């Protein structure tokens, strides 16, 4: 099997006195689709926020493509990474948020274009074409010059995905991307994720409460419970054959 693109090694995370993650070991392979499920407060979101460098681990290592994300070598010693190091490693990672976090002072086309132009210094014309293509792909080709405030929640989230995709990440993180949406808008967002999962070869990590959807597209499912990965495996392994009582209890609540 290929080398993992992301590896968590005994990662712990505490907020104050509360230890949220109690030793996470996890490999994510290129193009692999990973779903993280589990009760709220179990630390699912924290796992991917640390990979996006929005939260630093209390201890342990996160290795991205062979490079330690949160530590760097200085005079032969491993020290805490500075911003320059973080930037050099996280360039291949993109993220979509629960609350969209579109830039409200920019049109949706500008939302997509700003990072490739300013961060990656790419050619403006090429970025513009690529952004328009991407927005068309998520079904918003007719809204290029609208501002985020003029869109519905589902449309905003689709823009957020286009914005992340234009950066051509190797790893895409989805942080409960449908939780803030009205129920009737969830479907259109899931369709886009399904499309990405099917047609793009990037690794994807989804933190989600959309159980059936996650099980449908995921190569690997993690059940996170009280800060540890209590169960992991293929969707069918985890769902059908797990004897973990807490997992069965958790799943039964979704099945009614």
């Amino acid at each position, binding site marked *: 099997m290929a080398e993992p693109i992301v590896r968590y090694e005994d990662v712990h995370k505490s907020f104050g006195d509360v230890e949220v993650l109690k030793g996470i070991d996890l490999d994510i392979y290129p193009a692999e689709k990973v779903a993280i499920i589990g009760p709220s407060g179990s630390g699912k979101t924290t796992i991917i926020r640390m990979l996006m460098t929005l939260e630093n681990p209390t201890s342990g290592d996160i290795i991205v493509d062979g490079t330690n994300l949160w530590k760097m070598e200085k005079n032969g010693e491993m020290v805490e990474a500075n*911003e320059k190091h973080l930037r050099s490693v996280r*360039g291949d990672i993109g993220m979509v948020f629960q609350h969209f976090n579109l830039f409200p002072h920019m049109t949706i086309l500008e939302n997509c274009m700003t990072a490739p132009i300013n961060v990656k210094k790419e050619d403006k014309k090429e970025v513009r074409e690529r952004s328009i293509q991407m927005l068309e792909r998520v079904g918003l080709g007719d809204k290029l010059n609208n501002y985020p405030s003029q869109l519905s929640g589902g449309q905003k989230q689709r823009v957020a995905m286009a914005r992340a995709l234009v950066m051509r990440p190797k790893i895409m993180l989805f942080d409960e991307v449908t939780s803030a949406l009205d129920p009737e808008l969830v479907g259109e967002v899931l369709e886009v994720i399904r499309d990405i999962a099917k047609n793009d070869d990037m690794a994807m990590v989804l933190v989600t409460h959309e159980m059936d959807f996650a099980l449908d597209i995921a190569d690997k499912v993690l059940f996170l419970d009280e800060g540890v990965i209590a169960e992991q495996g293929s969707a069918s392994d985890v769902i059908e054959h797990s004897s973990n009582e807490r997992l069965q209890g958790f799943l039964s609540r979704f099945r009614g």
Partner: protein
Amino acid sequence: MDNIISIITQVAKGLNITISVLLAAALLSYFIAFVAGLCRLSKNIFLRKFTGLYIEIFRGTSLIVQLFWFYYAIPILFNIDLGSNWSIGVIAIAMNYGAYLSEVVRGSILSVADGQTEAATALNMSSFQRMRLIIFPQAVRMMLPEFGNYTIQMLKGTSLVSLIGMGDILYHGNIMRSTNLSQAPLIYLIILIFYFVLALPLIWLTRKGEKIAKKGVAS
């Protein structure tokens, strides 16, 4: 009627001082506000504390006394020439309002939602790019209404320069009143109207600013 016209022509002689002091003090105070506001958010503790000291001194003491300090005290104590009455008036007003406005700058930058910084980080922006492209443009929109309000106050604050012998509209009105006390009500009514008319475009701009601020900001 002749009375009114002669008062208006007298008071109008002060317009260029009132307006020029306002414009210069406003521009200088905006500049101070951005520099001091950003210094307050700096990682450098010395810069933060020093700017904090400036802000508290200028917010916590009277503008008239500050004006007299710049005009009478500082030249004697430190043997520094701060230039003409005009520039002293501008500096005092700008330093005072710059202190207030720097808190507006700081507060606006802090009130841009954390999610904006996170989204910019997820797009691999540097901290400078986050500030320049994402945070600052939104913070400026939020600042507009408060900047408008403080500019209106600054207009009224310019009347203090009459106390250091500058011929603004209040100064010329006072001269007329000193020769003809019975005219005082009419004179001061006309001065009020002058200030009000000068404030009208500022009020209008502030309203405009409020509308802009409502759009295009994540909070």
